[in-house]
């Protein structure tokens, strides 16, 4: 297990247990799990840093048009005049970075990399978030159902999960992507870029639910044998009450932690699909397709590869740090 709290000396003083012990001497009963977790998280500077970056990224994605209007150029506009006419790489040093083109220009067509990164954040976050919501929803519902009811329901759902986990996801995603690219007209009322985004969300989200489903099922299996569930049942509580009022709140922590941790892997999966040419429809900017375009010139114009690479790195790392921090905060035993 990771132990991010050991990294910096300042983090030592933020050891949640130390804090809890110290404060527990001053009568602090009545604190909810939520409050304790929030308190622990507040002291985890690394995780908070991740959270700040994520908030910034979300703001960038939401206000992309305004940001680009103020600081960049339309993301799909060509600027060939900024390129060396022989080599087709930016005329100026460092990938053409200057006051007007903050992150330089793309080789071959001279598009503004800054604008494309900003718009690319939209695609990355949108697909990753929605795909995560989709897999968490399906995973939680089916996981609880399997764990709580057991028997043939559990058998059916568990075997389905086994099958999906054994599914050659990447191959399937590539073929579906190709089919959708050539689809004529509207599919379920969607077409063009929105259709390709919806397809990505579906592929990434739908095939990831078994991971969360297994965790939820396992937790449910152990929770349903706990005394408080027995107590509720002996008081005549319905299945619905037990699931929603007794089990679900106790499942919130692992589900939340796991969600934060699958978002970055979903971001990477979207980038991989776009890299392979079956992601978002061109010319919609996507970090993955920018990386794929940069391969041809990486040694003569490294900036074009570094910029989307760093954007991906920062985003994925921010989510991972926040996820680790959340896990430590919600379930201190897991970390040590």
């Amino acid at each position: 297990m990771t132990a991010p709290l050991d990294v910096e000396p300042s983090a030592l003083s933020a050891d949640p247990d130390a804090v809890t012990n110290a404060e527990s001497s001053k009568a602090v009963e009545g604190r909810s799990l939520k409050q304790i977790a929030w308190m622990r998280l507040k002291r985890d500077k690394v995780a908070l840093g991740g959270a700040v970056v994520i908030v910034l990224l979300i703001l960038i994605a939401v206000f992309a048009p305004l940001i680009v209007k103020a600081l960049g150029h339309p993301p799909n506009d060509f600027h060939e005049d900024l390129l060396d006419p022989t080599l087709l790489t930016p005329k100026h040093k460092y990938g053409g970075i200057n006051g007007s083109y903050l992150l330089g220009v793309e080789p071959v067509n001279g598009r503004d990399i800054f604008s494309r990164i900003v718009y690319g954040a939209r695609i990355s976050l949108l697909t990753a978030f929605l795909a995560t919501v989709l897999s968490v929803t399906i995973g939680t519902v089916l996981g609880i159902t399997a764990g709580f009811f057991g028997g043939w329901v559990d058998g059916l759902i568990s075997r389905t999960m086994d099958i999906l986990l054994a599914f050659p996801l990447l191959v399937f995603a590539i073929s579906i992507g190709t089919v959708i690219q050539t689809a004529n007209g509207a599919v379920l009322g969607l077409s063009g870029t929105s259709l390709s985004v919806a397809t990505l969300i579906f592929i990434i989200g739908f095939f990831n639910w078994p991971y969360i489903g297994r965790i939820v099922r396992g937790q449910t299996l152990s929770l349903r044998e706990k005394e408080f569930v027995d107590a509720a049942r002996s008081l005549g509580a319905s299945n619905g009450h037990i699931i929603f009022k007794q089990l679900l709140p106790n499942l919130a922590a692992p589900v939340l932690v796991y969600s934060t941790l699958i978002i970055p892997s979903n971001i990477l999966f979207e980038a991989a699909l776009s890299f392979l040419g079956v992601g978002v429809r061109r010319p919609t900017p996507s970090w993955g397709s920018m990386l794929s375009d940069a391969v041809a010139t990486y040694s003569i114009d490294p900036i074009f590869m570094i910029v989307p690479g760093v954007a991906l790195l920062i985003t994925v790392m921010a989510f991972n740090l926040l996820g680790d921090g959340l896990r430590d905060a919600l379930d201190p035993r897991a970390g040590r």
Partner: protein
Amino acid sequence: MSRNKLVKAGSVAAVLALGAAACGGSSSGSKPTSTGVKATYNAAIGGVVNKSTKVGGTINYVASSDFDSLDPARTYYAYSWDYQRIYQRTLMMFKPVAGKDGASVTGDLATGAGALSDGGKTVTYTLRDGITFETGAAIKSADIKYALERSFAQDVINGGPGATYLSPILVGGKTYKGPYKGGDLASIDATDPKKIVFHLTKAFADFDYLMALPISTPVPKASDTGRNGGANYQFHVVSSGPYKIATYQPGKVLNLVRNTAWKKDSDPNRLALPDKINLIEGLDSADEDQRVLAGSADMEIEGTGVQQDAQSKILTNPTNKVNADNPSTGFTRYISIQQTVAPLDNVHCRRAVQYAADKVALQFSRGGPIAGGDVATQLTPPNLSSYKKIDPYPSGSDNKGDLAKAKDELKQCGKPSGFTTKIATSNKGKGPKTAEALQQGLKRVGINAQIVAVDPSTYYSGVIGLPSNVKKQGLGLAVAGWGPDFPTPYGFFESIVDGRAIKKDGGNSNYAELNDPAINSLIDQAGSETDASKRNDLWAQVDQKVMDAAVILPFVADKALTYRGPRLTNVYINQAFGIYDFVNIGVTS
């Protein structure tokens, strides 16, 4: 990357992948160079670099993938045709000389061009003395007859250009099924072992060129049987030239050693200098560039040009630059504008696309003026004999499009505010960038095009090569490219603008389904016109008419940046293939 893959995909779809005729427009013009030239940039276009007769040594070639086939009847890549000339002989051959003469043919197994009689409907070749297989057996006319018959057997040995070109030309060819099932073809007469006589359905001006393709490589019938014959002959080919195959591991190596049965006095065209010729296949393109620039390999044989990375190492370093050439490949890159998809069924809407396209952006998407090529204004590539410069849709002084004219055409089309359509492209290589460049150009006049990027393996065969699919998906525009099978206008135009060559069931190359009786009849006239200048006039008319119909938007006449190892001697671009001629290359050490 891109060009490689696209070209190959095309070829698999029988689209052809033949770089033919290269020109390069170098200053030395058409003078066949007998004296060598020093290694300078572009020296191998029109000149022979490091001319030498030094015998011995080993050449090390590299390639990114295996040949489509070593079977002479099945291969359809230009570089493969060129490479087979090292160890195989054909009835005729493209002259192994630098300059424009390389695109003309000379006798190889035959003593010279075919003798015409019966109004051009009978062609007779006389074979040279002393020609032998690697087994030592003499090559008889029946061996060539058998080889040509094999190429009809598409059910056993598919691929290759033989059946397509020969069946309409040879008497009885249309119904002939090949020697495995159909016995022999009476219109190829080999009763005299030193003479081979062809009976044609009508005079065919380019017949000597057809006989310079690998399909006329002799195949001993006795070797084409059992486990080593038919589809497996490609692993057991019998050579007729100065080298024979020592080792062949498909996708890995092909090593050639001297064929001791070959007699030099029977072959005036080949010098046969090196003792060994090794080829390593299956290398990554960037790896190939590195090896060649470092000198651990001598040359990349596919001739599609170095990657962008190596391009900058070559162009910015004078020591490397003197060993590089920038030949035309004979390909024209174009956007096919489908008249089967509304509103592009209206010629004015098609012309609006012609005017609105930003040809500079399109040229950049292909790699710019060096790795991509020159901006094209017509379908005919500049190195074809029928080339006559026309520019029916001038795209402004800066080549970035004439938006006023485009809007005017849109008005005449009844779509003054533009329309929406789709751009089909392969999702690998340069295709996506080309599609984006086209999209941006058209957007300026309100033509909003959506990009449909598909896997290259199906792009030519099933996506744009299937007329019903083009219509169903509404693929109004398609990124495409074409080079001739053999460097004559017929070899260039026939598959892409002849309405009778439309293949409804897939593998179609006339994507726009152009079927204009006037063009079809011009093609027929040109095909049987024996006077060269009249023939060229007819082909120039075909070019003009195709451009008038506005179904093809040419944007680049292809070029490639290629590198020749400094150790190599007798290096020049053969105009027939648009790449280096492998026949006479030797090494200094």
